[in-house]
Structures are given as C-alpha cells and as structure tokens.
C-alpha cells in the first residue's frame, strides 16, 4: 500500500543523503520523493511516497523521526488531505492527430506548454490517478518523454471536508 509521508527537515547539507541512505540501509522502498523550501528559510519539506504494509510504514516514520535533522514527520494515511503530482509529457502529435490530442488535453484540464512540428508538450497537475489516466490516454499516440515531480501533499483545514 502507498503511504504519503511528509517530513519537515532542517535546511542543512547532508539531510537528503541521510534520508536516502536510511531508506537504502533499511531496505524501504521509495516510490517518489519531492523536496522544496517552506515559508521558513531554515526548513524544507520532503514528501515521500512509500510502498509497504502498515508495519513497514510505521518503521519508516519512526526511523525518519530519529534523524536529528528531521523536525517533524507525518503520515497522511487516514488524513483529510490534498495530494498533487506535476508532470510534463511530450506526446507525438502529427497535424492530423492534433485536434484529438488537444481535445484530450482539454478534457483533463491539462495545459499545452510547447508545440513542435511532431509533438505537443503538456503540463498536467492533479492527483496521481489523474496523471496515470492521462498517460494511459496518450499512450496510443506515442509518449516521447515524460518527467514527474512526485507527489506533494498537505492536510486540509478541519472545517472544509469536501475533496476536489
């Protein structure tokens, strides 16, 4: 099962190596890892998607919390939260196929960010399931290249309950 774990870490050299090393040393599997700054310049946030049963994920959470440069660890399982992936994808698009592809892009609420003579580069943002569905939809035309950020996530405020 996939778990999204969010870790607030000190913005210091070596923290990423420490986290990556711990995962490797304890044979935990990382599905994706996204790192970026927070509103506090001293802190960064790592969002880690981990595959494993509850016991494994519990160990991941505890072992992360043990790392001195990690301030806070949260497992989003069972939380009301928003999770998003960002993807850039180049799909083969001959002039005759272009309208079809553009309709598809529109349907997914995706955005064209570059057009070449033989391809279209698309920016898609959304929950992982939507990203996966978009890739599937593009496959028949030929996916030339793609890059994904990995999941980032944030807890919802308690008052709002509806997920978009």
């Amino acid at each position, binding site marked *: 099962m996939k778990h999204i774990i969010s870790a607030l*870490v*000190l913005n210091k*050299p*070596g923290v990423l*190596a*420490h986290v990556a*090393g*711990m995962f490797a*040393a304890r044979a935990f599997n990382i599905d994706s890892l996204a790192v970026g700054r927070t509103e506090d310049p001293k802190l960064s946030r790592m969002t880690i998607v981990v595959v494993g049963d509850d*016991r494994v994920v*519990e*160990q991941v959470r*505890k*072992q992360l*919390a*043990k*790392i*001195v*440069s*990690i*301030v806070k660890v949260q497992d989003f399982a069972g939380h009301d939260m928003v999770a998003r992936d960002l993807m850039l994808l180049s799909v083969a698009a001959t002039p005759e196929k272009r309208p079809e592809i553009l309709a598809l892009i529109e349907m997914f609420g995706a955005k064209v960010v570059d057009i070449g003579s033989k391809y279209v580069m698309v920016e898609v943002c959304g929950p992982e399931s939507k990203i996966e569905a978009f890739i599937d939809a593009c496959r028949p035309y030929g996916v030339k290249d793609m890059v994904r950020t990995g999941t980032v996530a944030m807890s919802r405020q308690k008052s709002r309950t509806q997920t978009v």
Partner: protein
Amino acid sequence: MGKKSSSGAPGAGTIRKPGSQIIVDILVEQGVEVMFGYLGGVVLPLFDKLYDSPIKFIIPRHEQGGCHMADAYARATGKVGVIVATSGPGATNLVTGLATAMMDSIPLVAITGQVRTTLIGNDAFQEADTTGITRPVTKHNVIVKDVADLADTIREAFYIASTGRPGPVLIDIPVDVQVTETDWKGPKEINMPGYKVRTRGHARQISTAATAINNSKRPVVYAGGGIISAGASDELRTFAEKANLPVTTTLLGLGCYDQTKDESLDMLGMHGSAYANYAVQECDLLIAIGSRFEDRVTGKLATFAQKAKIIHVDIDPASISKNVYVDIPVVGDAKEILNELIGAVEHKERKEWFDMLAKWKKKHPFTYNRRAKTIKPQYVIEELCRQTNGDAIIATGVGQHQMWSAQFYKYKHPRQFISSGGLGTMGFGLPAAIGAQLAMPDATVIDIDGDSSFNMTLTEMSTAVMYELPIKVCLLNNGYMGMVRQWQELFYGKRYSQSSLKNPNFAAVAKALGAVGEVCDKKADVPAALERMLAETRPCLIDFHVDPEENVWPMVAAGKGLHEMDGLDIFESMS
C-alpha cells in the same frame, strides 16, 4: 544565531579564540578527563592546543583501537568517550569502532580533521567524504564549515551522544576552521528542533503494564543494555524483588542484574541458558526492558514467546514492534519507568512458576566435561571467576570465548562486562580492556580473548605498555576461529575451510612488546598461572592452549525456535 550567552565569556570584552582552542575548551567544559586519538596533518592545530590542556591523552597504535578504547571507556564509566582522528585514512579507520558503538548504543564523540574547506571535493591529499562514509554508523554527524558554529556543534554532539538512546556522534572539522578565530561563546540551553527526548513514560501505559504484571502467573523480565545505560540496575533489582520476578538478560545486559541471585536466569538467546530460553517460551508475560529483540535473542520469530503478552520498555520508539509485535509499549527512560512500576506492582508468590524454573535450572546448568585431561576454556573462565570473586571487569573479543565469558563468569555489577554485542567486532577485547582500565585504574581488568580476535588488534599491547596499564589478557588459544569452526563442524560437514591459523608465539610477542608473557598448556597449571596473572602489575598475557575443538552449548541454530536447543544431551552426559 550568533546570540551571546551571559554565562560564557567573563568580563565585558569579547574573547577571540581559534577553532582548535574552542574544541579543547569545550571538551574540558564537558568534563572530558581522558581522550583517545591519533595525529595527522589536518589535526595538528588541535593537537597543539591539547599539549597545554589538562586532558589525559592516549595514543593507540591504530585509530580502530583508539575508537574501541574510547567506547570501552564509555561503557565502563557511563561518560561520553572521545576519539580524535585525522582526515582520510584516520577517519576511515574509525568506521568499525563507530559501527560497534552504534550497534550497542554507546555514547561517543568522534572528532575528525578534514582538508581545508576550499579543497573539499577536489580529491585532495588524505581527503575522504567522512560524513558520507560515517552517516550510517553514527547517531548523528556534521561537518563544521564556519568556526562560528563550532562551539554549539560540539556541545550538541555531547548532548546527542549521551541522551535518549545513546550513540556515536562525529564532527568533521576542516583544518582552516581550526585555525580561524571567532568570538568565544559560553554554554547556553540546547535547543534542537529535530531532537527531543522523551524520558517520562506514558502514565496509562505504565498502569496497564503494572496490571499485566500483577495478573501474570508466569512472568519473565528480559533486561538489556538499556538498563545499564539508564543506570537503572538498582531499580531493576527493587522492581524484580518487589513483584517477585525472575530476570534473564541479554549479552549486553550482563551485570545489570546480579547473577548470583536465585532469581537470575542468566543470559538468554542463541547461546543462552536452557532455563532462560524455556522460561521465555513458557511465560505468560515477557517484560522487555532496554532490550531490542535481536535475532540472536529471539531465534525463529514465529515461535518466539508465543504464550506471552509482551511489555516493552524502551527509550527508542523505533525499537518498539520492530521485530516482535508488542502488546504494551512504554516509551521512556528505564530508570524513570521502573521507579513508577515499583510503586504499582504487588508481590505475588508464583510458587509453581518458580518451582518450574528451579527444576530447569537444576536440570540444564551451563556445564562442560570437567574430567577432561585437556584445558577446557570454560574451566579457565570458571577458575578466573572464582579467583577474582566475580568482581573483575571483563572485556572480550568475539566468538566462542565471548560466549563462554558470558556463560561461566557470573557478573554482579553493571559496567562489568564489556563486549561487542550487536556488531560482533573481533579484535574489540584488547583495546576495550585498555579503555576500561583507564576508566577504572584500580579495578582488575581482564581481556578474555580468542586467538583470532586477539590477532586483529594485538598491536595495542604496546599501548598498554606505554601507559603502564596492568591489564591482563587471558588468551583462550584453540588455534581456530573457534565459532566459525564450530559452525563448519555442525553445518558444513566438518570442512574447516580457512578457519585454522598459524599463530605466532603470543607470549613471545607480548614480551617483545614490553609486556609479560607466559604459556600455560597443562590443566594442573591453570590456577597458579591465573594467580600469577592477577598478581602482575605490568600488562600481562597468558596463552592458554585450550581444547581445540570444544563447542559452545547449548545452541539455538539459525531458523530454530528458542526451545529447540542443541547440545542439551551433551550437557546431561557431562554434568
């Protein structure tokens, strides 16, 4: 950042100091009296300041030896051990020592020199990515690139090393940081957002645990090294006495509970006592305190303590339910939690259970063939225990001799048994004895060693000679890597592939290094040889030529349950 403390520099003026002086001043401030280390190019500024410091400095013959000495110093005292090494090979030579300390939760601060900041990453002479290499074998490590951060970083290192679940912390300090001056900053309250230690146990968990103990008919305490690092031996004794509980310990827990008491079940696990292993398998409540359910303790997990509810008291939340599912976890300091449990538990007689334990204890004692004509290694240890009244500090290497030292010497006090448990570091014994002797100058410190373990670090004998330390090496020489040979005998059809050694004349080596050396190859000579060894005021080695194919029994083979011990029949035929 950069905030000056009021308690630090005296007077109104700011005091400027180079990094090297700051290191030494903070070591003194932290109460360091003895430290260990080896010189090299990029730590020369530090050594120049150490020249004028009150700290006693011990130079080993190899950084690994120095690291084990600092480790054993910490194990013997409970203080933080300190080791210094230069960059590159100096730092890489620490890795085994750091990993040893990490696995056994020993507080160490390692200071390594690094090439100047401008050269880092350029493959400079004696450059190594020390923080990269040591990250998995330290509790925390850090490179200090700005001298302004140095003081706080070293103070934090001592704090991290010695609190929570203790462990080694490494600080890598480039040579230019050592020579750059900065404002001296006095100590201030340590506040690390990512490092919070919870010592107080959850009240509801403690009361749940106490209820389970009071209701238990067949309880067993399974105590580990955490009791010793928490300084909780007295509390453990009071707790076990008040609630009337039998106690077994792990290898690293030896000494945390007086083994001469009737309630002691001695060590459990792969080479533990039959009575401890049966007790764990038959108990209805297993009370684990400061122990971590290591595979050498549990045997096959699927059959481990199946009839028992499990309480686990540990300072490290990550230890809870890592290997074995725990019914009642209590995270916190063993001493504090035991104190609370003492108030909540009731005395229960449990006669049936204690009768059962006494029966097992009588039926399956640790034993060996006492009628043998050869020198049995167990005999040497038993005699050593008798002659020292069970009060000596025992260091060991790793292997058969280590297990016999655990089985046949009866420990009464915490910090009396000093051994590499988790990592199983051969060669630990001699430097460990040196470190322990420096910590306890008046104690009798004995390295019970095997020939193969001793071979790995015997060069440190000259360190013992240089500092006139009266350590004793009780060498159980069987001419094999004994434990490896035992496994080859049992599991590889006696094919002794590469496990026999052509040893040097150890007594002559000891003499050449300036120590006393003697050979003992007759059973009748053992008591007198040990008497001479114990009376010797110089470093001394006795090379006991023991039965080469003696095995450690009982044994829970890999993949077997704790109750499925081999060797019990051999036991019975001998006793």
